[in-house]
């Protein structure tokens, strides 16, 4: 098992490194003169040279890459061109905010979607099954920022049930109140991801319901409810876990859009600002961090999957 984790970890490191290299080159092939853009038309040639020197843009591309990665490894995310301050000061608080939103969203999405899938599977072919599967799929085709706007306009503005901003005012930032403000953005993410996760959970449960071991359990004399909780869920949710992990990139992508709609000072808002301002250092670090998160979740999912499945667990420990 240890070996398996180490192997996975090694692969993850390689993935992140490759992402870093690709991102570096992608940002540097963006057209335009960065120094001119920041310093404006009035800047002299000396100013431009000085700007390039400060931000290391005068060095050959490969050594820029080398320096950047060396700095990253030392925890130095670089200097923002736009704000002229360390990127870390900018990104870290934003990541903190985004994690809160992601956390609330995650705890809302995963149980609700799985529950929906299980209910649909247990009532296969009935009306409630169709409502969940068709409804979930229909909701998923509408992008999250559209949902966000619709939600703000209806339950936020018209009915005034939920606050329309995601961030409570100064002096009223208790934990519960913060969560309360994050529910509406989370729902817009839920609406997009629910259909997908619920379908996978439904398929897993149906497969397990029709399995021979489920039959064994029922013929042993277990009630249907007990047989489902004891024999079906664990087997059924195995594939669902892998799928949820694979949905994390969508969750992060969705966060960016939703944060902007709700004017939430998270990672997405900062990243969008960096794109607009062509702020290389922020952009690069932001992408590296999100790839770290995605790869990290994939790793966790793989390990969970192995832990829950004795067949894999044994194979990897042999």
């Amino acid at each position, binding site marked *: 098992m240890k070996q398996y984790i180490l192997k996975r970890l090694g692969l993850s490191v390689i993935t992140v490194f490759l992402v870093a290299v690709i991102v570096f080159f992608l940002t540097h092939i963006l057209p335009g003169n960065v120094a001119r853009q920041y310093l404006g038309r009035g800047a002299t040639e000396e100013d431009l040279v000085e700007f390039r020197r400060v931000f290391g843009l005068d060095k050959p591309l490969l050594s820029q890459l080398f320096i950047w990665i060396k700095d990253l490894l030392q925890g130095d995310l670089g200097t923002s061109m736009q704000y002229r301050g360390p990127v870390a000061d900018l990104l870290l608080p934003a990541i903190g905010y985004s994690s809160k939103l992601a956390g609330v969203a995650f705890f809302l999405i995963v149980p609700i979607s799985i529950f929906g899938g299980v209910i649909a599977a247990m009532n296969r072919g009935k009306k409630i099954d169709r409502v969940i599967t068709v409804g979930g799929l229909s909701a998923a085709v509408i992008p999250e920022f559209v949902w966000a706007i619709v939600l703000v306009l209806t339950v936020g503005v018209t009915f005034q049930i939920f606050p329309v901003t995601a961030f409570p005012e100064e002096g009223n930032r208790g934990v519960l109140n913060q969560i309360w403000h994050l529910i509406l953005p989370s729902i817009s993410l839920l609406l997009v991801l629910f259909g997908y996760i619920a379908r996978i959970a439904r398929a897993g449960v149906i497969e397990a319901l029709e399995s021979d071991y489920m039959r064994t359990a029922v*013929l*042993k004399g277990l009630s249907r409810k007990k047989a489902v909780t004891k024999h079906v869920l664990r087997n059924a949710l195995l594939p669902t876990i892998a799928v949820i992990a694979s949905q994390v990139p969508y969750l992060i992508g969705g966060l960016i859009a939703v944060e902007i709609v709700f004017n939430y000072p998270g990672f997405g808002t900062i990243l969008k600002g960096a794109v607009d301002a062509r702020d290389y250092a922020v952009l690069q670090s932001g992408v590296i961090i999100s790839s770290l998160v995605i790869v990290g979740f994939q790793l966790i999912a793989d390990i969970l999957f192995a832990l829950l499945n004795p*067949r894999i667990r044994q194979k990897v420990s042999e």
Partner: protein
Amino acid sequence: MSETPTLELRNLEVAYTVRGIDRQVLRDVSFSIAPGEAYGFVGESGCGKSTAAFAAMRYLPRNGKITGGSILFEGNNIVDMSDGQVSDLRRSAISMVYQNPATALNPTIRVGDQVAEVFQLNGVSKSDALAMAEQALTRVQIADPIQVLRRYAHQLSGGMAQRVVIAMALASNPRLLVMDEPTTGLDATVEAEVLDLVRELRRDTGTAVLFISHNLGVIRHMCDRVGVLYAGALVEQGATADLFNNPSHPYTVGLLRCIPRGGLHKSTDRLDTIPGTPPALGTKFDGCVFAARCALAEDKCQSSQPQMVTIKGNHVARCFLSDKASSLPRSAEQIEFASQSATTAHEVGETLLNVSHLSKVFTQDGHQVRVINDVSLTLGVGETLGLVGESGSGKTTIAKLVLGLTAPEEGGVVSLDGKGLAKTLNRRDVHDVGAMQIVFQNPDQALNRRHSVTRIVGRAVERLRSFSVSESIDRAHELLSGMRVEATLHSARPVQLSGGLKQRVAISRAFAGAPQIVVCDEPTSALDVSVQAAILNLLVDLQKQDKTSFIFISHDLGVVRYISDRIAVLYLGRVVEFGSSQRVFNGPFHPYTEALLSSVPNFDGSIRKRIPLTGVVPSPSNPPSGCVLNPRCPRKAGSGYETLCETEEPNLTEVEPGHFMRCHIPVAKLKQLQS
């Protein structure tokens, strides 16, 4: 019998709803099982055997429903019971064991917890339940119960998993045990052990048993009474010996004649078949359900439904012509054969295939596993070589080595017509590839679902004979017609065909390149006996016609005996006995062959003393020293050769002309021990 039967079905009708229409699966089925009695069901697949078994548990598929009649368990109708009451019964009084023990166990829960669950359901605490689970496993003769309790399903062998399932079924001390094909898919030796176990447990507990099997030999050995199901109707019922000795329904007669029973051989006997196929689910009948396939059928059989008539005592048959049933004419091909075989005696030509010193080593988890060890065999023109042995003995690997699907180790040579062949398929030329083809066990998986039958066969012709497309389509039609696949089916896709027809298509494809040798890997194992008989007849015909040679692999020793000229018995990748079909089956036997043969339940009902193989098949990664059989050998003890057996591996030596054995004990001594 004044005693209340343990199980009684009264006029039971079950229907499955398929595309909105109710299709009847069981028609007016009535029978009863007395306490302590074993009742067997036989019939082709799709005739309602399993449905009847599951109905007894009141466990029908989602689209199944009971449309009439009653199911009485100890006099109480379980059709009317609430779900809770049925669960109570399943918990305490009725249990079931079914085919595929490996999937019947939950893959993510330890075996021990699953067995303990039965006790916990009856109110026992977790720790006590685990202790009781240990006893339950001991009861089914699992040697190391504590170890097994901690394992997961995938870590158990098939026989072990079935023992666990049986242990679970017996845990509640049920008064009725329903067994649906409990030994299908298990090796003959394991099957024999499981059946012995069931018989012993039944003796000890007095449990009533409902036993379903397609294997009539097994039914004959296990059951007191037998019912024959056809198209969901009970057509004959009686005490086992009565029914087998004096079958009184034409269907039963036909079914019994299909089986390649002991002594039949392709050179002298042709197998009977039942023409046609069982009716589709939910077919409606005016007359007798079997009339359409019955050679005796008269007008009244088509128009009115026969009632059960008493033959003798409690032996009954649902047939107007039960007194004539035994005179059921043999199928037409049979008669044709009789006239043919008088003129063309079966003969084996000169050596075609020569396999020498084949070995194969796999690397598994860093260990070297020698799955095939120095195998040498020959095959003549028009000859059938049977390969038998338990699973893991290397039958299929030998076939793969011969075909070039996997390369043998250095020193192994496969030569055809005196010419050495390249080790792997991709280095053999088209002629050599076409010369050796294979027919698999499961035609479902071997045929491309998206292609039509003609295309499947046509492409093989195109590749192997370098014919043009139109030529190869013509040839494909010819081949298919030769295999008795009707022209109307040539454009069908495999999914539209029955199992037997699919296997005919697979055989057509194998014959596309005009092969000299066809490897048949369990070609009839997934088929019903009547279809099996037809396929075996076809293979025999093809052999006669084209002088094709076969390498025939099967776990069914009756089938191998029928079709083979010579037989190689394999154990742990070694040939332990090699000789004519006659010699191998009539003795003197190699001790392993002897044990293998004795484990097959005899179809004619004669009791043969079983010579058990003790212990499990050793892993080929760590074979025993000396003779590989020695730890399990039934003849080692007291033979006087114990030390030799344990230290030195015997050679394959010719003990009689053309009869080879790998054993230290001299053949005269074996003969004496076996008489």
